[in-house]
């Protein structure tokens, strides 16, 4: 089956990034979200494209074409018309299983499912649907349009044909696909969460201020963003959720830093509340 129209479930930062990336590579995208702020997704994708336009990465015409390929809907019945499904919702096992079960009933039987989950086990998600052989884990890393690598996992039930479909999809998105074995946290999130947690500990212990810690890590490893800014952009509530999943699996190595709990309790969640480790303006730009 030729993949032309894809569904993206979830319109958070990851879902929007996937939608933008896929539309820029010629796919028609139906973006679904029933969460808060979902309706705002198209405007935020447009903002993202405007930032690219301002940096000469795309033209006005390209921006119009990309936006024209994305539609937003709350109506899950639209799932019956898609050729591929990408699930990009928050890593909560019951919510995800429920959503995949619904999609399983609505999508055509030959549609391959992708889950972007990194801290839940693929086998646990596969158990919730009848097409368990068609579920593939593909961890696309935000900012999705810019990151050129993706982690792929399969569980013991996954069919080779489904993996092939997903590899071709990822390749067309411009990603180098690296297949790894199923494990909680995969490679990128596991390493990154350890780094974020340690940076938070250093801040909490007064080793340095956020700016200094961030700058040393960022500059010495040539990172575009340091761990604290990355955490702010993910959302500290989301980071804490991932950390708790990792803590359950790996024990004390991933015990979340108390500072993360404090910030989340104070609703200091990062870019989305304009304050996390750093301050941000309404456009998400870091303030001096």
């Amino acid at each position, binding site marked *: 089956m*030729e993949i*032309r129209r894809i569904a993206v479930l979830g319109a958070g930062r990851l879902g929007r990034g996937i939608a933008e990336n896929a539309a820029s590579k*010629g796919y028609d995208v139906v973006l679904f979200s029933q969460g808060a702020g979902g309706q705002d997704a198209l405007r935020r994708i447009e903002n993202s494209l405007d930032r*690219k336009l301002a*940096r*000469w*990465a*795309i*033209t006005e015409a390209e921006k119009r074409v990309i936006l024209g390929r994305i539609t937003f809907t709350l109506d899950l019945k639209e799932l019956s018309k898609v050729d591929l499904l990408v699930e990009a919702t928050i890593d909560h096992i019951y919510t995800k299983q429920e959503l995949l079960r619904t999609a399983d009933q609505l999508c055509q039987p030959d549609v391959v499912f992708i889950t972007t989950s990194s801290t839940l086990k693929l086998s646990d998600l596969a158990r919730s649907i009848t097409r368990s052989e068609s579920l593939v884990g593909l961890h696309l890393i935000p900012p999705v349009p*810019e990151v050129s690598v993706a982690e792929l996992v399969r569980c013991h039930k996954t069919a080779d044909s489904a993996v092939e479909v997903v590899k071709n999809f990822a390749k067309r998105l411009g990603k180098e696909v690296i297949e790894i074995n199923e494990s909680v946290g995969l490679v990128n999130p596991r390493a990154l969460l350890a780094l974020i947690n340690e940076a938070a500990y250093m801040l909490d212990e007064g080793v340095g201020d956020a700016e200094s810690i961030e700058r040393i890590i960022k500059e010495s490893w040539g990172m575009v963003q340091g761990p604290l800014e990355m955490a702010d952009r993910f959302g500290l509530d989301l980071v804490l959720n991932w950390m708790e999943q990792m803590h359950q699996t790996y024990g004390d190595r991933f015990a979340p830093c108390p500072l993360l709990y404090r910030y989340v309790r104070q609703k200091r969640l990062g870019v989305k509340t304009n304050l996390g480790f750093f301050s941000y303006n309404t456009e998400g730009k870091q303030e001096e």
Partner: protein
Amino acid sequence: MRIFVLNCGSSSVKYKLYDMDNEQVLAEGRVERVGQENATITHQAKGKEKISKTMPILEHTVAISETLNLLVHPEHGVIDDLSAIDAVGHRVVHGGESFSESVLVKSDTKEILDSLAELAPLHNPANVMGIRAAEKLMPQTPQVAVFDTAFHSTIPAHAYLYAIPYSLYQKHKVRRYGFHGTSHLYVSHKAAEMIGRDIKELRIVSCHLGNGASITAVLGGKPVDTSMGFTPLEGLMMGTRSGDIDPGAIFYLMKTYDLNLHEIDSLLNKHSGLYGIAGVSDMRDIEKGIAEGERLAQVAFDMYEYRIRKYIGAYIAAMGGIDALVFTAGIGENTPSLRTKLCQNLSYLGIELDEELNQKRGEPLEISTQGSKVKVFVIPTDEELVIARDTAAVVGKK
């Protein structure tokens, strides 16, 4: 002999069917928006009504299949059966150093072309897709690849090498290749024919000025230099491409704006040229802007003319003189004001333009006066005819 010429772009297919006995076009057309539900096919057979239709065409094989159906259509077609086509000629943009002339497509040809995709990412993959699709639909018919870069293969090393470590040329073949080869070949030979002299005796500067633009110095029928380089970004100012720029300025911009490779590539290829200066990329809009007194439209026009003039001067030096100056492609054929200004600024060479002839368009014309020391021509290009001729020659040799 009947030759079917295919020019496949990423979302388009252009085609012409030639009767090579008299080089007449029997049918021609194009498919636009390949890959979409609302693709359009426009087709015209000789002596018949032009038709167009909209339909879903999701891949090149379907697009080519539809055009072949039209060629044998009882009402709109011109042949009874596809076996009446003796060979298919394909335009391929980049032949790298592997192909210095047109070749019969064999099993390894496509693999080599696939490996060249990195050198022309916008064009070569679509060209190879066209070859594969045509092979599938006409498995018994010879397929010939004709390269835009092939005409430039005679350019000497001192002109095609860049002054960077030689090992980079050896390892990665980073060098000047040049583009629009079939167009430069066609118009330079046509100019020689119009002059009535053997091209081997002539020094011709050929200006292909379209949305992409390049100039070639053709000495004795063979190019000795051309303005486009490793990619079509080098050389003249173009519609949206910068052309020549100090690489130091690129490093500076990348550092200042923290630009990644994609961003700087897009800046130079899509946001620069006429568009970068005046905000419009079409020369007709530039002329309109000038008429309305827009300063930057005038600046863009002056830059465009000046850069062409500099290259003409350089190529006169490269060839030790000039006998003919040829203009072709969209801007070259349809912008008399540009030709006027260029020729006025080159009057020290003894160039004199016949302004009345300069205003005409649509056919090959000599637009210089009888007394002009350098002959100036406007020649509508015909790349498909060159592809058809080369295809016939390659198949004839088989």
